[in-house]
């Protein structure tokens, strides 16, 4: 039996997510506060970059999350498309704006980190370039979703785009890396950032967990309103709406 039963899933997810959101939100808040304290105050300055390296604690988690969110989005989209499960379509659709925000933050914090290190805001560094292309993939996904009225066709069409996209991500990633080494083989790049000491690893992990829980929380919040919209013709939604004045 598929673990997500196609018809009952949206309603059960709505209720389940409803109970978990406060907990997730709480954990996110705690992680963020401790992550900021550890990253900005507790961790010692780097001998090479001084305090500028602290940008790493927001840049790296966002870069990871931008990649992870795309893979999660693509797998929800594929599940929704192949087994025709509406809940998966909804989770894929709401994951996109979050992933795009992570990518945008990674780009901006990356260039802000680049300035003190190389003197310019934008360096065609391999990681930033593939991050930028990932951002275009997100924008393409959301544009396709927005331009198709029929919810099911929009979900399935963008699912195919996400699957094609997720296949292309490693190819784009390595092409950009090889392209980069062809042109600037020797220079310091963001890829080989300063050696990570234990004191740096701890804030990095805490901040990464914080962003993961943040993603989880907001995914549930966005999914719940999307479920209400998509299931507005069902009885349980109608009862819900009439119930609450």
């Amino acid at each position: 039996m598929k673990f997500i039963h196609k018809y009952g899933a949206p309603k059960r997810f709505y209720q389940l997510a409803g109970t978990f959101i406060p907990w997730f939100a709480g954990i996110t808040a705690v992680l963020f506060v401790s992550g900021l304290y550890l990253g900005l105050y507790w961790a010692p300055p780097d001998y090479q970059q001084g305090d500028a390296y602290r940008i790493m604690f927001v840049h790296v988690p966002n870069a990871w999350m931008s990649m992870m969110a795309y893979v999660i989005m693509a797998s929800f989209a594929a599940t929704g498309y192949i087994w025709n499960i509406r809940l998966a379509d909804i989770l894929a659709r709401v994951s996109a704006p979050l992933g795009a925000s992570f990518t945008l933050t990674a780009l901006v914090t990356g260039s802000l980190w680049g300035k003190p290190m190389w003197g310019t805001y934008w360096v065609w560094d391999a990681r930033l370039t593939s991050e930028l292309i990932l951002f275009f993939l997100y924008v393409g996904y959301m544009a396709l979703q927005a331009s198709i009225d029929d919810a099911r066709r929009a979900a399935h069409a963008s699912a195919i785009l996400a699957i094609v996209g997720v296949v292309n991500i490693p190819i784009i990633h390595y092409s950009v890396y090889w392209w980069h080494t062809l042109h600037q083989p020797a220079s310091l790049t963001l890829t080989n950032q300063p050696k990570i000491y234990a004191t740096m690893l701890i804030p990095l992990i805490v901040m990464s967990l914080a962003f993961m829980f943040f993603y989880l929380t907001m995914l549930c919040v966005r999914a719940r309103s999307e479920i209400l919209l998509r299931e507005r013709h069902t009885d349980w939604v109608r009862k819900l709406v009439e119930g609450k004045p």
Partner: protein
Amino acid sequence: MTWAQFLSMGGFAFYVWSAYGFTAVVVVLNIVQPLTHKRKVWQGLRRGLDDGEEERHEEAE
């Protein structure tokens, strides 16, 4: 470590704080926007959002 020292971030105050500031803005936006959207959805449902959509379907066979 005085407050001023902390703020100066070893001279990189502008870069560090704008990086964290931008991240904060994106995080807050990603909290506020879904919540306002949620309220709009509830208002729409209460007003019977689907009536509009029903007419639109009548013509498209």
